[in-house]
């Protein structure tokens, strides 16, 4: 996605999963003109069935869901079809849940207060295989990895964030858009996207010290 302004030739096919019918209807109404909503789900079971039945480009997934939560949906769908992309949309903001759903495989996280255009843009981004980090998620991730600076060269490199990745995350947390980050760091938007994606990958791969420590500090484990 080098040129974000070009209108897409095809509209993204989206499934909305949320246990509140009101929210589903609202989102559908808002993004309906710009994407195609092909299905809805209200709990884990119906979500998995709908997603596997319609194979959408992107699934908008609530973090808290009857039947085991969004994490369960991602697990069950990815067992059958690992190519389905998820974007977490939540009102809960509980750090452990958000990080949990990202680690389970969601490619981004936005809050429910996001407006329609921003949401559509996030959907396109996820459909293109990029990651979508809201400032809050960037904050959570920085928090999760913040123990990694002083323990240098102890653990394998994969689990640590590079200096550049940290810079990018901090700018996202400060409210910078990708374009502004690119200008600030004198790199291309594409490079910003690469950094963010690699943070996402590390987050999903890393099951080691930093996250464990972070979780222990917050009495999550």
């Amino acid at each position: 996605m080098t040129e974000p302004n070009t209108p897409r030739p095809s509209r993204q096919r989206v499934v909305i999963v949320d246990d509140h019918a009101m929210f589903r209807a609202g989102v559908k109404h808002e993004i309906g003109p710009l994407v195609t909503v092909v299905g809805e789900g209200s709990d884990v079971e119906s979500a998995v069935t709908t997603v596997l039945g319609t194979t959408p480009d992107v699934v908008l997934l609530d973090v808290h869901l009857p039947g085991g939560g969004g994490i369960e949906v991602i697990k069950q769908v990815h067992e059958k079809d690992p190519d389905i992309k998820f974007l977490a949309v939540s009102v809960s903001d509980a750090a452990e849940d958000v990080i949990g759903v990202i680690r389970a495989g969601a490619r981004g996280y936005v809050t429910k207060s996001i407006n329609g255009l921003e949401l559509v843009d996030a959907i396109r981004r996820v459909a293109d295989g990029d990651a979508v980090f809201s400032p809050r998620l960037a904050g959570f991730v920085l928090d999760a990895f913040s123990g990694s600076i002083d323990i240098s060269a102890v653990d394998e490199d994969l689990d640590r964030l590079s200096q550049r990745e940290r810079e990018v995350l901090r700018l996202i947390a400060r409210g910078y858009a990708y374009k502004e980050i690119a200008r600030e760091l004198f790199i291309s938007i594409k490079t910003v996207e690469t950094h963010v994606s690699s943070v996402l990958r590390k987050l999903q791969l890393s099951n080691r010290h930093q996250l464990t420590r972070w979780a222990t500090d917050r009495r999550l484990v």
Partner: protein
Amino acid sequence: MPDPDEPRPGPDTSVPRPSLAEIAAQLDEEAGQTPPGAPVAEATTPLKATRVPQGAWLGGVCTGLAAHLGWPVLLIRAIVVGLAAVQLVGAVIYAVLWLAMPIDRSPAAPGIDAATRTGMRTQTSVRSSDIGERLALLLLGVGVALLVQFLVPSWHVVPFWPMVVFAVGVALVWRQADSLAPRIGRRRRMRAVVQALLGIAFIAGGIVLTVARGFGIQQLTTPQWIGVMLFVVLLAVAAPWAFRTRTALTAAREQELLANARADVASHLHDSVLQTLALIQRQADDPKAVAALARKQERELRQWLYGESHEADTIKAALETAAAEVEDDRGVTVDLVVVGDHEMDVRMDALVRASREAMLNAAKHSGADRVDVYAEILDESAEVYVRDRGQGFEVGSVSDDRMGVRGSIVDRMARHDGTARIRSAPGEGTEVWLRMELE
């Protein structure tokens, strides 16, 4: 979320936000199609065995065990009766379980439960097939008892038949004391009294027979007799009542806790959500006010629902308070992200005050409807970034008004050995960067 196209689009985008009426209409439209996420309640075996009144003959112990273990009731009854015939072992086990197992009160819906309690429902009566079963079990018991006595005549630890009389008496009394069936109506109450008296008579008879068999009546004086009788009768009769009172007390305490919790939720909803909804209705024609109210309510509710009840004495908590105040005062959205945390002290207080000033500034002068605040507290320093995408200004040529505001930020930081830097240009928005070293 980050947006590559342009500075964050404002709320007035080309896609109109749906009105509540539109959403409601759409909901109605879809009501028929969308399957509601009906949570399927899995029928799991209860961990704790309870006495089941439905189909009970005596205390519901056997029906309860049958439900708990998944065995046929008749089998369990046969086992109990068989064991009872061997030196009353089964009877003792039954009595112990009767006291230990609480009555199952869970499955009935509130309405049905209420109807049961007020006697508005027909209780399952004894079916004719039950009589056959009872007769069979009775014969089984007597048979096993006779067999045991015939095969092992030396087993005379307890005189068996007098004790059977005693046990029947205890069972009659306990059954009446146990409120399995409602006792509404004159006839039922009369029956209860008769049964209880009959039970006491049986108990007394059992004791008389036992003592007569074991020791001979002549050896005991009359007062001793009366004493022994009273003691045993009281014990047998009082046990279930005492036990029931205790369970009732526990239940009452649980009910009270539950009621308190409900009252807490109700009062919280009343104080917060209801008030906000009322305010929103009154200001329905002012979208900005409505949004501010909704956001404030959301923040409060979120704090209440998911709040990590972190101590108020940290930078994070202080910044959250400051951001909330600015939001409420100025009607803008303040997006706060905090990484790490630290205890408050004089210098951190200065940092938070300066941050608040910067947020207020952005809300007042920038014209943007949203302020991004990012705080990072690491081991050696605390940094705060306050950013808006408003009109910005020429940093070199600040007015006196600005000077004053800058003073309250820059000078305050300088007084506490901190740094403040302001980056802005016309049309570019403003970012205030604050930094304080940690000792």
